[in-house]
């Protein structure tokens, strides 16, 4: 048995008297200072934390870790998530005490090394994307989008252009796009996709007027296609006085090939946890630096790093800055990893990455075409979308294929997204996967396609080989039990009912 059968929570393994760590016994004050604190400031309710030994805690968490798929153990063809390999030298760099032991409010002369990294990372991003200045503060892609929407608002407000309350997003966009715009109270309007999955120019023109603040775009889009009319789109939006926002989720296949800045984008965010190989951590932390063209620099969150004769320093904030979007300077540990990656990549590495990402995706698409319907024919960039619509007769949904793949040791692709494709299965192999891995994946998909015909029930019920079968998510949502305390209460209630 490789995976532990024990599914108890730490709280349920607790036993009074055990402890996981010892702390200094010595007290320096002659009298306990807490005796002088007014009683009503002190905690009255007991703190029911688990009591476990260090060895038990280690076993507890290591066994949990083994119930996970991860990039280090499995292939993750998750569309739009860019689950590439996370290099270990990045981890080494970020764990250096010379960085981890830095306090964020230390003086400039004691932090020249980290300021240089922030400066150089910004320079690299500027080169790669064709933008003029970056803030490193945003903690994630969505946080970058929010920052971007704040910049859009500040820019139009500075020009007294108050009527611009509309933000356009394609109907294939990530949910974070409309949600970010709505936070700034913008009115979100969807632009239709054309038959090729690209922005429908006619529909775009219909929506473009003097009220448009911005168009948010992912390019290549979520169908894995390059918006070939991008220059025309940029011209149309700018002509009406709107700004163009680039969602960097799909930047990976453009490395060294083409730059959002040259396409006409005014604002962009880059997901360092996608394109720059930093680990996803089970959901975060990421990092979402936001870059702008010259006319938007004054509005960037302060402070920014600049290079002076005597070294690196924090630049004086512009009074037009939108202000701080984060407690301190950003997710520095993630930025150090991305910087290390950029240094290993170098100029010539950029093209190798985008080339392999595009080749791998097109290869997979070609190999899967005999077995599944491809949403849009023709070459793709770094990802493509299959539609499982035709499997409706067997009662098999895209999500079921994803679940069955888990039994073959592959993580599921992104399922049911983008919403413009019915029963979508979105596949992004990334550049770090070998041909052999892709071939094994194709074999698994082939077998599943066969099963859909011969034994659809097996696909509908999968997976069978993981620590758990499909969790009942309807039950979880109807009766939310979100903590150990909820569990205890639930149990007591059940006992009462039984009695």
């Amino acid at each position, binding site marked *: 048995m490789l995976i532990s059968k024990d599914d108890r929570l730490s709280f349920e393994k607790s036993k009074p008297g055990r402890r996981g760590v010892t702390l200094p016994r010595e007290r320096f004050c002659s009298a306990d200072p807490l005796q002088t604190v007014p009683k009503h400031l002190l905690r009255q309710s007991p703190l029911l934390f688990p009591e476990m030994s260090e060895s038990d805690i280690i076993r507890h968490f290591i066994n949990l870790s083994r119930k996970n798929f*991860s990039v280090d153990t499995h292939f993750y063809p998750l569309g739009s998530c860019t689950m590439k390999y996370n290099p270990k030298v990045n981890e080494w760099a970020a764990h250096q005490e010379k960085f981890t032991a830095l306090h964020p409010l230390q003086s400039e002369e004691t*932090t020249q090394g980290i300021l240089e990294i922030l400066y150089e990372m910004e320079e690299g991003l500027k*080169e790669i994307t064709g933008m003029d200045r970056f803030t490193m503060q945003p903690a994630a892609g969505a946080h970058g989008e929010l920052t971007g929407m704040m910049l859009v608002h500040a820019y139009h407000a500075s020009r007294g252009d108050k009527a611009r309350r509309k933000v356009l997003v394609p109907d294939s966009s990530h949910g*974070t796009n409309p949600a970010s715009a709505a936070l700034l109270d913008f009115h979100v309007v969807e632009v239709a996709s054309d038959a090729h999955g690209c922005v429908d120019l006619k529909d775009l023109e219909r929506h473009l007027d003097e009220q448009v603040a911005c168009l948010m775009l992912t390019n290549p889009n979520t169908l894995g296609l390059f918006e070939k009319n991008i220059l025309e789109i940029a011209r149309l939006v700018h002509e009406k006085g709107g700004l163009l926002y680039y969602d960097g989720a799909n930047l990976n296949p453009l490395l060294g090939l083409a730059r959002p800045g040259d396409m006409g984008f005014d604002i962009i965010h880059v997901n360092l946890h996608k394109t720059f190989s930093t680990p996803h951590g089970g959901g975060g932390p990421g990092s979402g630096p936001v870059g702008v063209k010259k006319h938007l620099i004054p509005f960037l969150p302060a402070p920014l790093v600049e290079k002076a004769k005597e070294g690196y320093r924090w630049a004086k904030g512009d009074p037009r800055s939108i202000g701080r979007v*984060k407690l301190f300077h950003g997710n520095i540990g993630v930025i150090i990893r991305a910087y290390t990656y950029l240094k*290993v990549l170098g100029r010539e590495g950029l093209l190798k990455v985008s080339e392999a990402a595009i080749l791998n995706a097109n290869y997979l698409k070609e190999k899967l075409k005999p077995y599944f319907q491809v949403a849009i024919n023709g070459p793709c960039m770094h990802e493509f979308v299959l539609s499982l619509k035709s499997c409706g007769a067997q009662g098999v949904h895209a999500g079921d294929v994803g679940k069955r793949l888990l039994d073959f040791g592959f993580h599921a692709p992104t399922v049911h997204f983008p919403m413009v494709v019915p029963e979508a299965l979105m596949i992004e192999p990334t550049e770090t996967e070998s041909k052999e891995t892709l071939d094994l994946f194709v074999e698994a998909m082939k077998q599943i396609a066969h099963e859909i015909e011969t034994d659809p029930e097996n696909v509908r019920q999968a997976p069978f080989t*993981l620590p758990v079968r499909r969790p009942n998510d309807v039950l979880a949502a109807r009766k939310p039990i979100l903590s150990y305390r909820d569990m205890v209460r639930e149990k007591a209630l059940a006992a009462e009912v039984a009695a």
Partner: protein
Amino acid sequence: MPYLSLTDEDRGSLLRTIGVRSLEDLIKDIPASLRNARISLPEGLSEPEVRALITRLGRKNTTTQDCLSFLGAGSYEHFIPAAATEIAGRQEFLTAYTPYQPEASQGTLQAIYEYQSLMTELTGLDVSNASHYDGATALAEAALLTLRQTDRSKVLVARSAHPHYRETLRTYLTGTPYTVEEFGFDANGNFDRNAFASKLDATVGGVIFQTPNFFGVMEDLEGVSEKIHANGSLMILTADPLSLGVFKSPREWGADIAAGEGQPLGLSMEFGGPYLGYFVVSQALMRRIPGRLAGLTEDADGKRAFCLTLQAREQHIRRERAGSNICSNQALCALAACAYMTLLGKKGMREIGEINCDRAYYLRQKIAKTRNFQVNTTQPIFNEFRVISKKPFAEVELKLKTQRFFPGVRLETFYPELKDQFLVCATETKTKEDLDQFAEALSQC
């Protein structure tokens, strides 16, 4: 580059399968005018070279380990158990994606569930999310939550709360129909009760307090939640989670939301991030909490299982009608905090609180005896306090720097009226000798 697996032969074979001659045939959609941008970057480095570079850059930093540091103000130097570092470094956690496929993510999901359980226990409130970016952003979103819930337009915040929290809050509310107003503090650094009461009107949706506040003072919030609730508003409390083993919890103070910075729970200072925004709400606000939630359920065989739940609140489903746009969070930081809290356990959480108080009170007493520095020795504090210098602080700082001290955070930067005052922080990482040495150095100033 060692991260790519395609050989020249593979590349040829892939191209043949795809049925094209070269990459160029696949990227014809990219307009020619966009190609061939001149990208000025140096050549890539080998691993030994990149390690030498990182080491060289690291040496240009002087860290809190190279000096004796008393810096706090929102980022704290604490002991991190080796076992906690091991757990958070585990690659199966580190390199996993968001647990949207629960069958392949029970490890991450159960860890999040335990984190949520620990945070509800610590704060006393009912529902914790799986993490937010950091304390400042968690607080800003908490403010938005109260405004939506109450359908009101203004949020009040104590000026004794962290200046960066307040600035982030202002940034978040600019461009929205909402406003933020502040109420001041008294000479001792406690929030001003009269100012608070006078600003509490029918437009106020939420009120934010921090304890210990930015000056390290444990705020006395007696009677505060009653006033806020009587006004139909909600109370947000941001507390140092490490203080909650000994000091009153947000629930005990009557708060509806506990939101703030979880960095003290076993995360290194790392020049400001990645940190951990914690976000815990009362049952009544469960449907409005931003971010991911792990829930308990059972699988098709009736076996215990965890999955993300109440997802219809979130941006990937509700799009422009979602209450928040958060997607990626700080899951790995939450895992580190979960491991930290589990290791400290019931006794450890109380002891760590006691030890922080002990170190700070001891140092404060010592500084009280110096000639040129003044402190208030009767105020309840946790691990940080305000020092008033009779000499220009710049001079003091310069002198102490040559003796390899980071004496503390200058308050004038944030509060222009607080000239020559600074914040000093002492946690369990300081030995008696450290504290004596620092007090001695101050007495020589």
